[in-house]
């Protein structure tokens, strides 16, 4: 196969790509995604959808790369901005100023509430998380950090230490000492852990990877008070919640709480060019530290010329179209619709949670995650269950989604849940036997079992090959 991208792929080409991916990157990943029918090859990425290069079917993208596509996929305004910028710009020189860098940082600060006026440009969410924690530790001269259980902040040293799920950490110990995990939304636990040794409390206003858990207003206001009383820096991770996802530009606006430091990434990139940022309050403790240590966090590929031009265009687009208003409106309808589905299916859905277009459905059993992904996949809905919490399906479609698309999506989800009942008729009685439920919930068992099913399915489908039409 040449280096050219295929608009469509036949199964032979797909198998070759799978083999390449397996040989050079990870076989395990191919098998893991295949078991839940998540192994689409994305082409024609437009708005809220993409097509699978192999089947030619169109899928709603309910993951958005964990919330990267707030301006919609293939947004021509952003694409054209990047194309035009490429006449004159590349990453620029690390450490040297340019109009693009300063203009973006200034614009970003202007869009943040309160006295969040100061910026450190970064390259990714994890990079920004590292910057935020370094800033808090450096400015307070303290070592310890409070983070929440199930939290997800990234995979580099600082953010990994801050993650609230052992699964991501256990194989890589020892990490950084002094990170204390508290239960999300439990203020009493924070009060017990808070003290003069704590540099920062870090949390996501809505836990994404952890399974869409929304912080309460009392909790956020309580955290602000605890931080003020103990000289602790309050840090919000708005990597997934930022840029309109939750119905306001930033999730923090809905709480009326301004953190001392916030960091963000993902959608700042417009889905086309990586970027990220730490924004912090213009308060003496923080600015004194940074003035004394201006190079405390230099991110080599963060805040590049192209990145800043793209991110500026993303901010302009969001503001001009007030995209967060759409997220609020479409999000409300989506959540209401999912609640209706939940009420009609008390046997499998436990709860619907969320804010704006960051919504999760929690099923009653962990194994339903992969099953449901499969059932949705067969109905043109590509949705991912939480790695941290496989019983939670995350719905984070691009927030540019129209109301018609939301209705269509709800119909498909409803069909998928109905379709799943057949599996459940068979699985449920077995799932009540504790040993079997444990077996079903085991991801390795799922990978083997579901891959086997896919093999059988592919074999029969291979007997009757479907001719794929090339769509413009």
């Amino acid at each position: 196969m040449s280096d050219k991208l295929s608009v469509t792929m036949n199964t032979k080409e797909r198998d070759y790509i799978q083999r390449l991916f397996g040989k050079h990157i990870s076989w395990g990943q191919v098998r893991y995604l295949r078991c839940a029918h998540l192994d689409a090859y994305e082409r024609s990425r437009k708005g809220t959808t993409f097509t699978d290069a192999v089947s030619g079917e169109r899928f709603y993208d309910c993951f958005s790369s964990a919330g990267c596509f707030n301006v919609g996929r293939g947004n021509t305004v952003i694409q054209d901005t990047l194309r035009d910028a490429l006449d004159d710009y590349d990453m620029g020189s690390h450490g040297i100023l340019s109009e693009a860098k300063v203009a973006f940082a200034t614009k970003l600060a202007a869009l943040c509430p309160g006295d969040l006026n100061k910026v450190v440009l970064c390259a990714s969410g994890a990079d920004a998380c590292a910057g935020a924690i370094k800033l808090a530790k450096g400015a307070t001269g303290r070592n310890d950090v409070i983070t929440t259980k199930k939290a997800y902040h990234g995979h580099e040293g600082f953010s990994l230490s801050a993650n609230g799920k052992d699964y991501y950490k256990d194989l890589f110990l020892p990490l950084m000492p002094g990170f204390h995990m508290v239960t999300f939304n439990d203020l009493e636990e924070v009060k017990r852990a808070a003290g003069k040794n704590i540099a920062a409390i870090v949390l996501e206003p809505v836990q994404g990877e952890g399974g869409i858990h929304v912080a309460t207003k009392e909790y956020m206001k309580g955290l602000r008070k605890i931080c003020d009383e103990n000289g602790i820096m309050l840090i919000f991770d708005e990597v997934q919640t930022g840029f309109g996802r939750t119905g306001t530009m930033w999730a923090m606006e809905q709480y009326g709480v301004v953190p001392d430091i916030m960091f963000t990434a993902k959608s700042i990139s417009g889905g086309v060019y990586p970027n990220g940022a730490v924004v912090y309050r213009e308060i003496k403790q923080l600015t004194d530290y940074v003035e004394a240590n201006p190079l405390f966090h230099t991110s080599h590929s963060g805040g590049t010329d192209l990145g800043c031009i793209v991110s500026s265009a993303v901010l302009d687009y969001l503001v001009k179209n007030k995209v967060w208003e759409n997220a609020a409106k479409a999000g409300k309808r989506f959540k209401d619709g999912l609640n209706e589905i939940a009420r009609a299916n008390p046997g499998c859905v436990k709860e619907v949670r969320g804010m704006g277009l960051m919504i999760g459905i929690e099923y009653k059993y962990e194994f339903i995650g992969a099953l449901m992904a499969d059932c949705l996949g067969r109905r043109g809905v590509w949705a991912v269950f939480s790695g941290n919490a496989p019983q939670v399906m995350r719905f984070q479609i691009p927030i540019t989604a129209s109301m018609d698309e939301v209705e269509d999506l709800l119909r498909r989800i409803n069909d998928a849940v109905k379709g799943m009942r057949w599996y459940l008729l068979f699985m449920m009685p077995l799932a009540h036997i504790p040993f079997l439920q444990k077996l079903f919930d085991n991801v390795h068992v799922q990978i083997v079992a579901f891959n086997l099913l896919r093999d059988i399915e592919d074999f029969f489908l291979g007997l009757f090959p479907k001719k794929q039409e090339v769509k413009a």
Partner: protein
Amino acid sequence: MKNSATRNAVSKEDIFRDAEKVFSVSYVNLLREKGHDFLEQEYSGSTLTDSEGNSYLDCCASNATYNLGRMNAAIIGRFKEAIYETDQGNFVMPSQEKALLARKISGFVPGNLDCVLYGVTRGESMEAACKLARGFTARPELVTVDGGCYGESGFAISLSERKGKEQFGQLIQAVKVIPLGDIEAARRVIGQKTAAVVMEPIQAENNCRTADKSYYARIRALCDKTGAKLIFDETQSGFGRTGTRFFFEQIGVKPDILIIGEALTSGIFPMTAMVFTPELKGFFDIHPLIHLCTFGGHDIGCLVAMTALDEYNRLKPWENAANLGDYLIKELTALAAKNSQKIFSVTGKGLLISLRLADENLALKFCAAARKGGLLVNTGSVDTSTIVIRPSLLIKKEEADKILDIVNKTLQLI
């Protein structure tokens, strides 16, 4: 929304004032001190031009990123198309883009370093490498040499010799630092608990410091004996910079994990990678999606990097780097001999060259004076009394002569 959202900065002074406000005054002052207080506006090939129309021969190349010069036409052209063919993609999924680039990287990197994990920044790839070594060996210890510079993220900074890192409290644990070149120390420290030995085979930010070839061979042997994995960070020395594709070819020692930097795309897309042996990939097969990176393996970035690798193969910039590097080092050494009270030494390999001056102050003065002469250089971040010269690998002989001329004139000024 604040009022400043609608304000438009225009003049250089306005933009600098905004930079002081939004970043920090001391950062901008640092640039002033170094003579880097200009706005980068245009660039092409080996030069960049500021907002006032002054052109500079760029010997920073954004810390050895722009190995093919600025704005390579083929890469930019492919990038423009790629924007409309694909986007970032859902990062958890396999894609044709990721698979095809992996195939290409495995063909580009010598030996059996066939497997790839993508990152965004150089530091992030180091994080992945340390985690892979720990995960695969089920051992805790990371051993590194003194004077290293791997990045600003968690594992990377823990391994680096970096001023002020104690401000960040307790960092990654079970890290041991040994003096570079001291094989006895290595023997004492590298053992059954060692997951990995981490080093830059040439320390770009530390006066291009290296050890004898035999040292690396002995480290390799120690790793083989104990089961520890050898990690080389070639962020700055890779992609032809030192006269071969990678510097490890010259020392004759192959690592188990290699970190490659943003030179992968020649500085047009933020993308780095760690490249490793098939043996180590077993870990990611058993633990899929254990290390995630949203922007890592960005599908547009993959297409950009593929064209960059084609350009590397076509232009073979390592040949020019070897030739002109030898020439520059020879001439600079002669120049140093004549100015021995100002330049203490000239070290380096290919087009990664370090001049050691008397102290940090003089090095900063050198940067500022060189800029006035039309040459952009920076100090080393570990050894701050050094000036690092790392231009595009495609510079011409006349440009090499211009570097020599400006260095010579700058020495008379400081």
